[in-house]
């Protein structure tokens, strides 16, 4: 059975609620339940869940946790963890890095078996730093390379590809697959933008003895992208790495490109298709590509697995998805939860120390998006060969199952 507790409840309110629920023979304020209690000997598994329930990102991040909620359903259907009810305690981090130390304190007090979230590079860095001494197993959605460093964050496991991996795949696509030689980069002025810009520049230099012909860095609140785009155009850019966490910035950059009929091949880290893109000419959008997981792509000959298609259909039906199925399916949380269920089952323990020892030996675990492997030092679990390039406009093809899967770009 899954029990939910929210941060907004006072201690007295929680105790009263728990007592009432116990009296009624009903445990749980939320949905879903898994397994029956009893047996096993090990403590029931508890999950610490960090998600913005309030704040500006609440609605935007809800789809990202759909996979985790579906995993809870699957764990329930499989009889729970070690035959026991899974307890989920949700914590609202407001989508803010500043909230993470307080959330971490509550997580440490709760002593969960493992932690899901938070989401967002800045939030994750704040969270793993605050939790590093508590030795809590955690996986969050943050793309920074250092989050996969097992020496630095021995209890955090990264089930998403990192910025360096993205940069390698993007640079290879532009230079090697497409044969473009005038490569430009445009990134937002943030930790993410800086790190991926440096990684692309490094890859071009080390792998191809090349360097970008233009590098543009814009402020995240920039009103007009025209000057940056004109600089790229003047430099003769034919292949562009476009990296920003702001969907608005992407649309404004494309608008500036459309205004001057400047249509380079674009590689981004984001393949979300949003309605705002509908205003652009098709040739511009046809040249828009992005990094994604190989398991979530298809070609004319190769189709996604039945498991992937089934999960995508479930994601599309979930009310929290709200049309953002691509974000939901690329989220690491379904694979993470199912991996943890497997590890708990294999070790027959909910002791974080035993789970960590087992996680450090995970090799080739088949997730929905990609295979996952860890060592004690390497906690970045996605292999380079499981990262590929997809096309943006395949979101409009029926095979994308409602814009969730992507066609693999030619030549990759």
């Amino acid at each position, binding site marked *: 059975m899954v029990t939910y507790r929210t941060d907004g409840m006072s201690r007295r309110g929680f105790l009263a609620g728990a007592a009432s629920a116990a009296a009624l023979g009903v445990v749980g304020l939320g949905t879903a339940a898994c397994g029956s209690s009893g047996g096993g000997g090990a403590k029931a598994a508890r999950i610490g869940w960090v998600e*913005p329930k*309030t*704040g*500006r*990102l*609440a*609605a*935007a991040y809800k789809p990202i946790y759909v996979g985790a909620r579906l995993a809870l359903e699957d764990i329930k259907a499989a009889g729970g963890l070690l035959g026991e009810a899974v307890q989920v305690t949700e914590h609202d981090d407001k*989508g803010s890095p500043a909230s993470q130390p307080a959330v971490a304190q509550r997580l440490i007090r709760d002593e969960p078996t493992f932690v899901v979230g938070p989401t967002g590079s800045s939030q994750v860095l704040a969270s793993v730093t605050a939790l590093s001494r508590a030795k809590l197993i955690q996986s969050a959605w943050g793309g920074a390379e250092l989050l996969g460093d097992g020496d630095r964050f021995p209890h955090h496991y990264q089930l998403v590809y990192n910025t360096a991996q993205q940069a390698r795949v993007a640079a290879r696509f532009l230079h090697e697959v497409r044969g473009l030689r005038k490569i430009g980069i445009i990134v937002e*002025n943030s930790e993410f933008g800086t790190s991926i810009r440096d990684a692309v520049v490094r890859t071009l230099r080390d792998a191809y003895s090349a360097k970008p012909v233009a*590098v*543009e*860095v*814009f*402020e*995240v*609140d*920039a*009103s*007009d992208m*025209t*000057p*940056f785009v*004109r*600089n790229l155009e003047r430099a003769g850019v034919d292949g562009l790495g476009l990296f920003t966490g*702001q*969907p*608005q910035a992407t*649309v*404004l950059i494309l*608008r500036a490109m459309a*205004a*001057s009929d400047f249509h380079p091949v674009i590689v981004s880290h984001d393949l*979300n298709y*949003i*309605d*705002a893109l*509908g*205003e652009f000419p098709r040739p511009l959008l046809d040249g828009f590509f992005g990094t994604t997981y190989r398991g979530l792509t298809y070609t004319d000959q190769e189709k996604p697995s039945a498991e992937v298609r089934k999960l995508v259909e479930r994601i599309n039906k979930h009310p929290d998805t*709200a049309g*953002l199925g691509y974000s939901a399916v690329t989220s690491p949380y379904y694979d993470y939860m199912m991996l943890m269920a497997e590890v708990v089952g294999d070790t027959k323990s909910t002791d974080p120390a035993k789970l960590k020892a087992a996680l450090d030996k995970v090799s080739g675990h088949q997730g929905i998006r990609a295979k996952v492997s860890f060592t004690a030092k390497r906690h970045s679990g996605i292999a380079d060969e499981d990262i590929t390039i997809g096309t943006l406009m395949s979101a409009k093809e029926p095979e994308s199952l409602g814009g969730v899967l992507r066609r693999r770009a030619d030549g990759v």
Partner: protein
Amino acid sequence: MIADILVAGLVFGSLYGLVAMGFNVLHRPTNVVNFAQGELIMIGAMLMAATPIGGLPWGIAAVCAMAVVAVVALAEERVAVTPVLRRSSHAAGWVITTLAFSLLIAEAAGRLWTDQPSTVAPPWPLSLDVNHVAGVRFSSYQVAVVAVAVAVVLLLGLLDRSRLGTALRAVAADRDGARLRGIDPRALTRRSFLLGGALAGLTGVLAAPLLLASVTMGLGLLIKGFAALAVGGIGDNRGVLVAGWVLGTVEAAGAAYASPGSQSVVLFAAMLLILLVRPNGLRGLAVQRHV
């Protein structure tokens, strides 16, 4: 290239000037700088993209959006400003209360909408299609935005010379003194928040086709509008519009010529330089108060 910079400076500077004019309208009778102004603008833009209002003919939708934002601003005045001013007209608690109101709006927006931006089409016959005239590239909608900003300055100037404007100036000079002369500062405050809210709604309506409607758009406009207010001079609507144009142009030039990532440095360095030379704002209208 220079023409592109000037066009961008005028267009986006007009938006910054409009934000600053919204500050001015609310500031005059209350001495309050409304930190929720950015979020009010965001509501105006999001309403233009939202189905119930955005689906109406553009003019009706714009009026509806302005009306809704005006009502939200009035609510802000009731819960976040008047209670503070009632304790003392010189209290500075409004800094926190207007900021808190801004967070409440952001909270509500975060529950209603995702962070995906939405496009809003300009009203017919305007468009965002680029025209080339004598080497200058601009759209008809960009021209309209600049024209509306100038029109708003003129209308606020007319309002300033009216009986209401005189009463507002009296309240601005001395809230307690004005009350002794039979002016009701609270009623004027309510009217100003309604007007300031409508102006914020208009700014959001105008900004939506250019910047896209998004829940994250408010903060950037708030900061740049505040910069225009500081450079143009509090209370000087013409000054803040000119300041908006100057800052918009500096911002565009910074994007075109400054090394990557230095645009903000260039913008705020220019702002500091102007304030060092013209501490009372670009037009140098020092505030005088007779005691």
